[in-house]
């Protein structure tokens, strides 16, 4: 895992000192709210519907056990005993008090953490495949590249005031778990015909009010060219991106209006005009960064658990939540934060500490937050799976629903967010409760329900197999449905079904869709494949059929 060098540490501590002084000046009136607002946002502090909210950055979703314990400490000391894992792999606290935030940032800085790049029209915290460094299908660990992008983007003076926020996601696997086609820039580590490792650059993806699937900007970019090429792309966006209308300011709009061919030409021209030596990072520096992400010392000769002697409930959890690892004898463990009674992504401080202990005991002290609002222990010995599960049971974290219908992505919605138009948490809870039976979830199979409480789409509803958008009219919440969305390498925007539903009607409608799918699928066909085979109308008819 990356550790701050002296420059990182000095910068973060000086930034905290600056913010501490800014808060003092705000409280005594030397700074007005208009002056203070951009300063607090640069440090991840929002004023939400009911209170302040602090969003802490978790670069590429990876954190150490001591960092998770620090997040638990913050939640206990300054908030209400829990944190919320976001759809961008960060953690939010819903109830901080302004005067405490400098102390919170000081505590964070003591474990190499901060809240920079979690707000504002800058390059935001880079997100990443949560199985990085452990996935059997990856070419190399993408996190050194993500860390390089973090170092380049964090204080880049040219890109501190972009037309709009800018999100980058990276992966090194053919199976896209980072939703790279749904980001302003998506980067996939690939190998060319000559066997060289480089980058596939995707541009212009995004969700929000105008969902767009990203397109290829460069099919193969040599490693040395990464930062110059990103710099060129950002310059084109910064120069031509619209600033007159925030709803048309994202790069996806520029790419769409320019056309991918012309946009590519603009980038390539800018790239050709750059002096790469100004910014390019060579193999030696990349190798230095990569040493921070070196694989742990995996042991050999590990015997798999005798599953036949294990209880059924444990076997079900393994079937659902445990994934193959690149190293023989190891496994990737997904910890579900989708207890049907709780908000998706919420985790209490007791649970955080329990997970940190499990990470120390069984996963080299390291863990990941996922954009699906769960936690991953990336390197667990197969013969330790039972011990991990026992620990999760003790912490009430044993839900066996990863990638099933209970594993719902959900934004905070109207319950917390100032931008929301409707609640999303109660909808997620109602659906999770309806489908709570594990065997039923298992029988339904892979299913991603994603819920957003407004058109800004933080809940990624456009790419949900079943997407739900909460709206409000005349004081009444209602929910629109999209079907067939896909967040993976076969990315697709879901098809809008039509008129919205009340929450109660919605849950019934979803159950009708699910039951129809289960009856209509061929063999072990996934929901998405059945939907694509039968088409929109068949499902729409079922959705709107009276119960």
């Amino acid at each position, binding site marked *: 895992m990356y550790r701050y060098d002296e420059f990182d540490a000095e910068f973060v501590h000086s930034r905290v000192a600056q913010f501490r002084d800014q808060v003092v000046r705000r*409280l005594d*009136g030397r700074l007005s709210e208009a002056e203070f607002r951009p300063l607090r946002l640069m440090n991840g502090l929002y004023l939400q519907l*009911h209170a302040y909210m602090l969003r802490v950055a978790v670069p590429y979703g990876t954190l150490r056990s001591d960092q998770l314990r620090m997040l638990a400490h913050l939640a206990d000391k300054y908030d209400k005993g829990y944190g919320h894992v976001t759809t961008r792999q960060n953690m939010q606290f819903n109830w901080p*008090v302004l*005067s405490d935030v400098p102390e919170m940032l000081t505590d964070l800085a003591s474990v190499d953490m901060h809240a920079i790049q979690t707000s504002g029209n800058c390059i935001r915290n880079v997100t990443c495949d949560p199985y990085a460094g452990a996935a059997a299908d990856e070419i190399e660990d993408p996190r050194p590249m993500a860390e390089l992008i973090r170092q380049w983007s964090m204080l880049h003076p040219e890109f501190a005031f972009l037309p709009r926020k800018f999100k980058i996601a990276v992966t090194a696997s053919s199976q896209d778990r980072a939703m790279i086609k749904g980001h302003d820039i998506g980067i996939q580590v690939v190998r060319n015909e000559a066997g060289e490792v480089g980058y596939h650059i995707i541009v212009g993806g995004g969700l929000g009010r105008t969902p767009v699937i990203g397109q290829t900007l460069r099919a193969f970019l040599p490693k040395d060219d990464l930062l110059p090429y990103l710099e060129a792309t950002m310059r084109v966006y910064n120069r031509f991106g619209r600033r007159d209308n925030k709803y048309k300011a994202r790069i996806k709009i520029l790419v769409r209006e320019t056309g991918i061919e012309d946009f590519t030409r603009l980038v390539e021209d800018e790239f050709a005009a750059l002096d790469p030596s100004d910014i390019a990072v060579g193999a030696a520096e990349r190798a230095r960064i990569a040493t921070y992400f070196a694989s742990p010392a995996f042991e050999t000769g590990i015997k798999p658990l005798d599953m036949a002697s294990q209880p059924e409930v444990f076997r079900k959890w393994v079937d659902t939540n445990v994934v193959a690892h690149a190293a023989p004898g190891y496994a990737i463990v997904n910890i579900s934060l989708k207890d049907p009674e*709780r908000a998706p992504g*919420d985790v*209490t401080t007791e649970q955080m500490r329990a997970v940190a202990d499990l990470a120390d005991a069984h996963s080299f002290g390291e863990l990941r937050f996922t954009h699906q609002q769960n936690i991953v222990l990336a390197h667990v010995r197969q013969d330790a799976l039972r011990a991990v599960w026992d620990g999760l049971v003790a912490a009430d974290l044993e839900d066996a629903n990863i990638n099933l219908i209970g594993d719902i992505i959900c934004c905070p919605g109207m319950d917390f967010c100032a931008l929301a138009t409707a609640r999303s948490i109660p909808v997620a809870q109602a659906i999770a409760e309806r489908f709570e039976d594990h065997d039923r979830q298992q029988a339904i199979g892979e299913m991603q329900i994603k819920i957003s409480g407004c058109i800004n789409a933080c809940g990624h509803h456009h790419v949900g197999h079943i997407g739900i958008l909460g709206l409000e009219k005349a004081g009444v919440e209602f929910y629109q449905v999209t079907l067939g969305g896909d967040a993976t390498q076969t990315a697709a925007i879901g098809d809008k079904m039509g008129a919205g539903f009340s929450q109660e009607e919605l849950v019934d409608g979803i159950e009708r869709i699910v039951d129809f799918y289960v009856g209509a699928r061929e063999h072990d066909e996934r929901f998405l494949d059945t939907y694509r085979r039968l088409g929109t109308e068949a499902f729409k008819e079922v959705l709107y059929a009276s119960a």
Partner: protein
Amino acid sequence: MSTLKHKGKGPQAMTANELVSGLSVWMTTDLNWSRDYADALLTEDETVIEKMDEIAKAAEQANTVVGAYFIDTVDAKPARYRERFRTHGPSYDTADLISES
């Protein structure tokens, strides 16, 4: 002063957020601030509304509250759904489950 989608029709209330806590507050009948909407002053009296506006601006200047604005009310409740929601807080908060356990 921000009015959001305030139409200025019917009885008005003044709302804001406390600067330090960020919590929602409403101007009271004694022209102070309360976290309880039940204490809110609702009025159509233009003179009083003008006074409320002055006091809210002064409170912002004094760094007591931020983002003060008027809201429309109907039958003593905020007209807009969002504003009604602000009066009672989240319908779900994990903190409540923690305090129950």
